[in-house]
């Protein structure tokens, strides 16, 4: 993850923590965020798969990690770091993970 990316996330988190409640409430109203939490209007069934963000305490590191592979306790999902990418001068639709100029 790039330094710039980290800074963006850090800034957003900082703003959220420090924002006065009045300002937060105002923003929620202005941007219509309060209505976004109606839980009945789902378009997907939830029996297919789960997306779960683990809490910090749920995370543990394997002693013998493989490319940053982490495993989480039940209810969470395992995931892996991005694969290495090969550079290519030309974008090739038949190859994954190529760097190239977009059309």
């Amino acid at each position, binding site marked *: 993850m790039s330094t710039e990316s980290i800074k963006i996330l850090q800034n*957003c988190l900082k703003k959220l923590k420090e924002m006065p409640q009045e300002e937060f409430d105002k923003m929620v109203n202005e941007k219509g965020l309060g209505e976004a*939490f109606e839980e009945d209007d789902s378009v997907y069934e939830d029996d297919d798969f789960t997306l779960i963000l683990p809490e910090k305490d749920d995370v543990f590191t394997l002693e013998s990690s493989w490319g940053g592979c982490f495993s989480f306790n039940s209810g969470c999902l395992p995931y892996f770091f991005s694969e290495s990418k090969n550079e290519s001068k030309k974008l090739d639709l038949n190859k994954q993970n190529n760097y190239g100029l977009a059309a």
Partner: protein
Amino acid sequence: MIPNIIGYHTNSKEKCERYISEGIFIESKDIKWLGHGMYFWDNFSNAVYWKNEKIRKMEASELLIIKANVLIDELLDLTDLQVLEFINEMRIIYCERIDRRKRNAPMGKKLDALFKMFKELDESYSVMKVNGFYKKTPVSDFFVESNNSMITNKVKTIYCVRRKEKAVEAEIFEKEVA
């Protein structure tokens, strides 16, 4: 050099053809996954899986698969633990401040709300990546026999493209199968 992956999107014949011919972005109004955006699988097998699921549930019969280059130069990678920790903390604080009862609101709604709240988040990240754990997927014999409980085939990688200019050179990849 712009990093990219090949993504596969499954949808109705009508939507796919309109996307290819007219550029009409197929934006899901999702609330449970990653919120608004066009969803792509990272390999063809997963797109076929999704197509078969739709057919099995009789939600559609005429489905196509689109292949496209998904540009990931503005990627919010939720498989990256460092990113995850920031987003998760934001999620917790946001939900506690807005309404304690909404802490368990669907993930997609929370992410959409965070993107709406922070302009820099919205402007910096055009694609999101996450892994989904498919509990019903049978474990491959390959992993069972190798006796390694840490490796699994139950995980599918999903990309959510939030801006249509991040999915380029799209084409129909498989002909319609009833």
